[in-house]
């Protein structure tokens, strides 16, 4: 990703510095070309988070704030090390006071998460990273006219800059909304994402550039890319185009360091045996309903084998998945009982309003894991995230102990994402009946 750093601040988490931090975020977004409303939202979210740190999260601690972005997105990264190993203040539901004053009923982090498009908390050792991302608003465009049928041989190649918005528009016009990123409605946004290296595509075209199809990818974490498509632009489609596109994407992403490609909601054109099925989960649709999709996976490297740390409560699911997928893994069973007398459970929450999805990952396990999860599930449901996902990194022994609390809160294991974390990631999703509470 070709993000540009606009500013980096090293300062103490003090209430008196809140206006400075808020202004930096606001002006940083403006410097990236954001209009007032979008820039203001990022300023407000940053103000909420920094106030939270100054008052309760890490008062007085050194904080590093980086403002970065590109033509289509602005991000504020906030890094710091809490004074004590207590990650509770970073639960989305954390309150500084237990009173029920309506003005205090929403927490600072919840407010921040609601005014940006993507809110992420992660932890590396003792350090916390809070990330606030606002996408720039672009006008939606009318669908492009149908693409003329290619003549002569068609070959797959990397999309030219001008072909990104065209192919995205054709895809959005021809396929259900859950099969393409919502950015596809805005040609300027697509162009910005492509220019920043945040969106990749191959197209199948004839000698004069008439498009027969396209396949897109977006980064999905540090080691995976998410595939969208294959999108075919004629009826009937030009024969063999989907395979051409997939081979071209795999060939171009080989030797790039990515471990694999995942298609969460592929089109029916995806060649059935080209990507292996991992399992199913629900994706939210724009109309508030959900659709079951089968995630498909394509590994790019020979699998090196590894170790999976699992709690007994999910051992059978994990072993069965590894056997079905032919993954060579040593399964280490970790009881993972929470430390007695420690009430400090914390989950990082990533809220993606563009995709309509929320995702929980463990930060710290305490004896209050079940209560904490129930509170988080209720808060997310109140914010319209009824089928949140939760991920346990099987490469992290400390994650194993969260499984019982997740199961008790109504989450069920859905599938394994190979190498999506330090090791494989076990994906849970809140069951439908629980989500309707």
């Amino acid at each position, binding site marked *: 990703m070709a993000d540009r750093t606009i500013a980096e601040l090293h300062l103490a988490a003090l209430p008196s510095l809140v206006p400075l931090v808020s202004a930096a975020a606001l002006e940083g977004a403006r410097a990236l070309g954001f209009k007032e409303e979008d820039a203001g939202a990022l300023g407000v979210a940053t103000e909420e988070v920094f106030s939270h740190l100054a008052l309760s999260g890490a008062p007085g601690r050194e904080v590093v704030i980086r403002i970065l972005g590109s033509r289509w997105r602005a991000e504020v990264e906030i890094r710091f090390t809490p004074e004590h190993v207590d990650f509770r203040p970073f639960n989305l539901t954390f309150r500084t006071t237990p009173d029920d004053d309506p003005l205090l009923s929403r927490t600072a982090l919840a407010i921040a998460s609601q005014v940006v498009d993507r809110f992420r908390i992660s932890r590396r050792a003792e350090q916390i990273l809070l990330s606030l991302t606002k996408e720039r608003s672009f006008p939606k465009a009318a669908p492009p006219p149908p693409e003329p049928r290619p003549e002569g041989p068609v070959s797959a190649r990397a999309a030219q800059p001008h072909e990104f918005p065209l192919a995205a528009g054709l895809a959005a016009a021809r396929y259900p909304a859950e099969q393409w990123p919502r950015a596809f409605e805005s040609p300027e946004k697509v162009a910005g994402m492509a220019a920043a290296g945040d969106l990749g595509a191959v197209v199948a075209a004839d000698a004069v550039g008439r498009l027969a199809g396209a396949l897109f990818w977006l980064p999905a974490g540090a080691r995976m890319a998410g595939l969208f498509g294959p999108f075919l632009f004629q009826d009937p489609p030009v024969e063999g185009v989907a395979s051409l596109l997939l081979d071209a994407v795999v*060939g171009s992403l080989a030797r790039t360091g990515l471990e694999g490609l995942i298609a969460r909601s592929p089109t029916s054109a995806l060649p059935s045996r080209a990507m292996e099925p991992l399992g199913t989960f629900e994706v939210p649709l724009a109309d508030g309903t959900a659709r079951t999709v089968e995630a498909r996976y394509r590994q*790019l490297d*020979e699998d090196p084998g590894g170790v999976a740390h699992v709690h007994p409560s999910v051992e059978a699911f994990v072993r069965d998945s590894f056997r079905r997928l032919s993954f060579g893994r*040593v399964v280490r069973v970790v009881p993972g009982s929470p430390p007695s007398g420690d009430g400090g459970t914390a989950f990082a929450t990533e809220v993606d309003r563009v995709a309509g999805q929320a995702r929980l990952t463990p930060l710290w396990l305490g004896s209050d894991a079940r209560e904490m999860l129930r509170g988080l599930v209720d808060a997310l449901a109140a914010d319209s995230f009824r089928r949140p996902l939760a991920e346990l990194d099987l490469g992290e022994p400390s994650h194993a102990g969260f499984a019982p609390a997740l199961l008790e809160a109504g989450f069920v294991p859905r599938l394994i994402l190979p190498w999506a974390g330090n090791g494989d990631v076990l994906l849970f999703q809140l069951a439908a009946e629980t989500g309707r509470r």
Partner: protein
Amino acid sequence: MTSFVLDAIVPEFVRQFKAYVPSRPDPELMALYGVSRLHRLNNNENPLGPPAAAQEVLRRFPPPLGAVYPSGDSFYLRRRLGERLGVDPDQILFGNGANETIGLVLKAFCREGDNIVTADRTFAVYEWTARFSGVEVRLVPLRDGRFDVEGMLARIDERTKVVFVCNPNNPTGTYWDRATLLDFLARVDGRTIVVLDEAYAEFVESPDYPEGISLLPEHPNLVVFRTFSKMWGLAGLRIGYLIGERNLVDTVRRTCIVYSVNIVAQEAALAALDDPEHVPATRALVRGEKAYLLSELGAMSLPTASGEGNFVMVELPISDTLAYRKLMREGVMIRAMTDFRFPGWIRVSIGCHDAMEDFVAALRRTLE
């Protein structure tokens, strides 16, 4: 604790590079995949092992010599090889496998802003070594499965320092015949170094295959790579070499840290050269087992690509990385070819007959 920001001192081209992850040792892999034996058909090793004379060297190596530095420039081995090939020993430079000589050539001739030219689907180490050295890599698509003469020439410019040609090509087994190679060298016309990687040359039996060494007198910009890892069965000892015009090799030698080739490797390679039976025996085995394998794969209606060398490529109806895992569960290790930019293909090394039979049976079960 000292403050240290590692990223601040790491060059961008190193930061961006993904380290190669070698496969785990066999016992680890067998435990991971739950198998009691493993056929290694992934690295194009010689199933017959080293020549008998080299095996004798390994058996009789005096342990006290483990404390003594080897010849720093493989003195006796260069002298013997020079006699055998009809070249001055100073035209030969040994490395810790031919892979080391790739790095030596790049270090000798390339600096930031320079580029190399090679094919997109060939041995990956040229590309990797250049990238993590900060050298631009210009990849030319294969044409009909072969290195593309016109495409390669079109990408050469004044900053091109090295052109790598894998002949025969790993993994397609295709090669440039003598006329094609001479035409290419004539049109390069001394503008850049041309490396001819002949790692699999000893397997080639076609009469029109050009041994690069014979062209050195007329082409002082030509460098030939050879290895003891394939035909000679000494992959575990890591020994390979380059041959070129004397001044060119002297230049490359300046970038070489001596003693990188160990004493056992030098002694074993020296003995290997004098074994008259090893090459014919290996060729016969490869010829016979390749024919068997191609026949079986044909019976399964699987497309194959097979030229010179001790390997065959097979196109599968499932992803190659999935096939790798499924075959590992069957105790057979092949090479998934996505990393060679052949998605959906695997490469199988030619092994002894029992290994070939086991592979065929495992592949049938995998594709059921």
